[in-house]
């Protein structure tokens, strides 16, 4: 059995590596979705905003500095006319005006920081509203808006014991679960590992099975003295090998470059999760390959399944924040367990879901091997039954 499985796996991997079309079919969807993650990372960042500074006194200058230091927007200095034109032409998402009378108004507690916002879409317009409000608050209550020196902050779990008095009568003691923040790109990269394992494992296996069916090799294999289980295991091993090849070729350089800062004790868990993800995804690939008759249909179904599994399983989102029925649907995909397991291993102090995540991913792989072997044997059984009749 092992000899047959090894031969099938070797044949699949060789065919995959030697065929540019197969390589492209496997890599391009993953590459496209990775580029999508990068585009998303860029798109959810800062917004361009015009700054019209009419006042030039000390309060105006302080406000200007606070606004410039804000990570909510890219500030561009404009005259009022330029700002109006830039807003109209969509060069900026909003225009903030520091009024000419800000000094007198602020002294009489009647100052305003004006912001005109292109509220075409709630996501970025709310970002600007929050950032402008934070800037205004920073003027009277720097500690409330996180503008104080870092030595005075309470990052890393230290709790501020006494409030600093401010006119808002509320002070903030912010505690961050980790220090420093996890860059958004690194957070999103975790799902890219799962994506690579998913697309490579799924498509390599599905395409090799469908290719065998289309070329008639599957019928010849059915006559060979090899068990169906060995054939399916061979396809599964090929998919796992391809998936692991791709994920490690991204993971190792990132880890060596220090972009992924997991504690050394976590790496075995990460490796096990990636291997289990590859097995789970490859298992789905076995089923996709057996469900389709033509390679073109296999690609379409494979891409549908891969994108559904990736996006529903937490590729771009945090599943725990979705409505309960969507969380339940996400649990039907192998990506959910892969992404959750990898995020736990890389970013959290505890890994309560490790055993469950590994178990479910392996179960995906094993059950698909059993179903795959049964599906492969089915045509033979049907032929025998027809002959007996």
């Amino acid at each position, binding site marked *: 059995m092992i000899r047959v499985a090894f031969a099938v796996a070797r044949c699949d991997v060789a065919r995959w590596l030697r065929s540019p079309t197969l390589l*492209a079919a*496997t890599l*391009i969807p993953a590459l*496209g*979705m990775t580029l*999508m993650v990068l*585009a*998303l990372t*860029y798109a959810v960042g800062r917004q361009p905003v015009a700054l019209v500074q009419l006042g030039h006194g000390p309060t105006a200058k302080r*406000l200007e500095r606070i606004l410039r230091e804000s990570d909510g927007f890219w500030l561009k200095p404009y005259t009022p006319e330029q700002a109006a034109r830039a807003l109209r032409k969509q060069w900026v998402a909003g225009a903030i005006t520091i009024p000419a009378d*800000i000094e007198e*108004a*602020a002294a009489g507690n009647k100052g*305003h920081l004006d912001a*005109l916002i292109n*509220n*075409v879409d*709630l*996501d970025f317009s709310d970002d600007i*509203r*929050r*950032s*402008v*409000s*934070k800037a205004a*608050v920073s003027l*009277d209550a720097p500690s*409330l*808006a996180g503008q104080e020196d870092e030595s005075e902050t309470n990052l890393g779990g230290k*709790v501020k014991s006494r*409030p*600093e*008095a401010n*006119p*808002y*009568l*509320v*002070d903030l003691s912010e*505690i*961050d*679960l980790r220090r420093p*923040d*996890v860059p958004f790109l690194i*957070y999103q990269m975790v799902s890219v590992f799962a994506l690579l394992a998913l697309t490579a494992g799924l498509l390599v296996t599905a395409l090799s099975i469908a290719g065998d069916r289309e070329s008639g090799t599957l019928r010849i294999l059915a006559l060979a003295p090899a068990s169906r289980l060995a054939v399916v295991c061979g396809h599964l091993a090929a998919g796992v090998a391809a998936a692991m090849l791709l994920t490690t070729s991204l993971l190792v350089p990132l880890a060596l470059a220090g972009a992924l800062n997991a504690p050394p004790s976590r790496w075995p868990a990460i490796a096990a999760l990636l291997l289990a993800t590859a097995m789970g995804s490859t298992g789905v690939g076995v089923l996709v390959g057996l469900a*389709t008759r033509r*390679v*073109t*249909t296999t690609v*379409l179904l494979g891409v*549908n399944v891969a*994108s*559904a599994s990736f996006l*529903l399983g937490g590729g771009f*989102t*945090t599943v*725990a924040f*979705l409505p309960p029925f*969507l969380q339940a649907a996400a649990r039907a995909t192998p990506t959910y367990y892969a992404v959750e397991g990898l995020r736990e291993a890389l970013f959290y*102090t*505890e890994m309560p879901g490790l055993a469950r995540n590994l178990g479910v991913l392996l179960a995906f792989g094993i059950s698909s091997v059993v179903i795959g072997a049964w599906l492969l044997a089915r045509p033979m059984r049907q032929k025998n039954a027809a002959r007996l009749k």
Partner: protein
Amino acid sequence: MRTTLRVAGAAARVQALSLLRSPATAILVFILPVNLLLLMSLFALTGYNAPTGLVLEEDTPRAHAFVDSLRDAYHSFDLRPMDRAQADRLLRRGRIVAAVEIPRGFDALVGSGRTALVRFTVDNVNLDMAEDVRRAFPAAVSIFATRLSLPAISVRPRLTDMLAQDTGYIAYLAASSIALAAVIAGAILGGLVTAREWEAGTARLMRLAPCGLGPVLIGRLAAAAGWAALASSVSALVVVFGFRVPAAHPIELAGGIVFTVVAAAALGGLVGVLLRRTLPITPLILGITLPFYLDSGALEPQRFDGKVLFWLSHLSPAYYGVGIMEHACHGLIVTPEPLWSLYAVLALVAASATLLVGKLARR
């Protein structure tokens, strides 16, 4: 010319029948855009109202006023009342983004003009959400101060909107997803039907026909575009009835689907003629379209992402499609170019790509 049209018409009819008789590919092309539409909306679902644990240690008017301010802080918090232990547990397991703890004595402190200290714990693993809630906290405090008419505040934010009403993130993204559906369905089917001519070897035979391969391919592309328009219409129906996005200009919506699909099918046909193999068509088109979709104004007007990405977005029909769909659904202008020019570019792309398909087919 008449013969050419007759041949193209016959080819379109045959292709349509072929799609109906072997529906696996056609059905999957129907499913893929709807699949992507539904799944992309998940991203928008978690883009605002971050799940936040609310630990309220006293039941007083000012504490509730502060909670209301948090709730009204620009769609930032989805407040879930719980005790401190549960909040800590959920935070450490990544089930909530933050926890706000309003201490005992809050009302008395604020009432007597002293400052109350509110504990705010943030899971800063997802920086996008963490930054949203960090900015939202001072915004909520500012709202709280305004509602309580606190006197000693020197500068307050005065926010004015350009448009009469906001458009929700999901509604915005759903409208742009119709353009994604049109591009994906059109380009994949266009690519598959043309590449199949070479893969099946019929292209060689067609060349011997008196009218050549060009009209046949154009006919096949027309059938593919028709099928893709149907697939995109299903996505549009899901958006209008499922996501309850009103179609402000229904005729424009239909026109936008047709123009985008035709341009995408012609471009897909071009890819099919160049590759002459069906296998890489779907991955290639999906791989190119998805990043271009996000770089097409799908999440916000594209110019906000800078000049390079703005000009790059013009390479994809998705940019023009999104511009049309946002106006058709919400009446929003999200491109600096006028609306008619978006249709014109799509028509121009469709015509020139079809001409190129015909020309390359003769080689």
